[in-house]
């Protein structure tokens, strides 16, 4: 049985979000893969996602067209939020603060 033990973080800029989500929807992964709104330098808008993949599915990431400019990070058996925070820190991105 395949284990969902590969922590996968994906990031793209706002201009590519619709195309990236359409691409993954076409793979049968659903309509809104990148759904976490992010902020970068100059208040630029970016989008991110976190998911658990099984190892045999990882080659799909290598097939994502370069034109979509998807930044991908994979860590086996990672702690999801630690992985996510590390990627955001490395890219200089943050999640806009939200209150109740």
């Amino acid at each position, binding site marked *: *049985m395949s*284990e*969902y*033990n590969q922590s*996968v973080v994906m990031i793209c800029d706002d201009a590519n979000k619709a195309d990236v989500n359409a691409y*993954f929807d076409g793979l*049968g*992964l*659903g*309509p*809104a*893969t990148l*759904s*976490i*709104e992010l902020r970068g330098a100059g208040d630029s808008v970016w989008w*991110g*996602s*976190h*998911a*658990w993949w099984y190892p045999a599915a990882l080659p799909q990431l290598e097939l994502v067209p370069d034109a979509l400019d998807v930044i991908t990070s994979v860590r086996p058996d990672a702690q*999801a*939020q630690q992985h*996510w925070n590390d990627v955001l820190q490395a890219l200089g991105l943050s*999640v806009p*603060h*939200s*209150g*109740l």
Partner: protein
Amino acid sequence: MMIRPVYTSLVQGIRRALVEQVKGFDPISLFGAGEQGAWYDPSDMTTLYQNIGTSTGPSQPVTATGQPVGLALDLSRGLARGSETVTNGDFSAGGASWTQLSATLTVVNGVGRHAGLAVNGANQNLITLDTTKLYELVFEVVENTDSVSTTVSIREAATTTQRTATEVTAGQTGTFRSIFRPTANASRVHIRSAATSTGYVAFDNISVREIQGNHAEQLTAGSRPTFRDVGGLRYLEFDGLDDFLVTAAIDFTATDKVSVFAGMRKNSDATVAMLAELSVNANTNNGSWFMAAPITAGLGGSLFQSRGTAVQSAGGGTTFVAPASAALTGLSDISAPMVGHRRNGESVGVNTLSQGTGTYGTYQMFIGRRGGTTLAFTGNLYGLLIRGSLTSQDDIVATERFMATKSGVVIP
């Protein structure tokens, strides 16, 4: 905000009931009068699926810890099935209601033999569905002489758009099931062979029936919570990033009262998080509510909020600090104003200020993330029950104990 320290009659009754044993309690009894609502119980793995059926495959049940959950069935209606939508799915009337599309259908010994004749042949049966509801396709393959796969799907009546394409491989027999949401009311059961088909597949008891209830789904693979079975507890783990489930719109307009029970564990207080919310934002939508934990980044707490036309809430505090498990309860009455919040069998606030007017509305319910976009919950959900009614004192106690047990919490 006025907080009444003791909501006297309610609390006294609950304390009396606390000393009684809760025997033989089944939460489904809370829906015995047809109350609107939902009940999700991850400890019952038969209610969990990794996905609903799509154009690329059928629904897959959750069978092991670590698998994603794309569908949690609502138990509040006892998983009752609706009426049969397929006419002559058992071929008792021969080939009636079946249309041959470049394939043959021969009824032999009461079963339908589908033969594709090597031309991508198909047979179809027109049915009427409701795109707001969830259905289960079930069929039996009793004989299979074909050397290639045959696909059974639900298609739109007038297009090739399909859902829940279920593949029957060469020579395979048995009972096949898939849960799906149709893309059109006018639909059809569609049986299609490959162009290289060489034999026939004999079908029987082809059925498409609604699974009644307000089921929670996640169509996007990366946003599905994870099923865990750890230390005797089964739960949905939300990653605090993009995991959530959502229902179709639920009609609560017949009531201005609600009871919400959750068995949960907060794994982090780093960011404000939404455990469950009726509508995309209960701050602004009339006739809605939410249960949140934590309520202030870094400080913990939990809160239940309701809105008729004005927002009122109960709860708060900083004593409920992650990581921590709890049975949480939210109670609300719009017309006789009251919002109450309880944690592990004890009241943590009652607010009797006016919520304005009206009933609860017809909205989607989000679990684990506000509107599917913000305030992602970091933690575990062991159970969630929403009931469009206030709940008796005895039943509050019984339900809280039920949720506590599922969550590994001991209520004194």
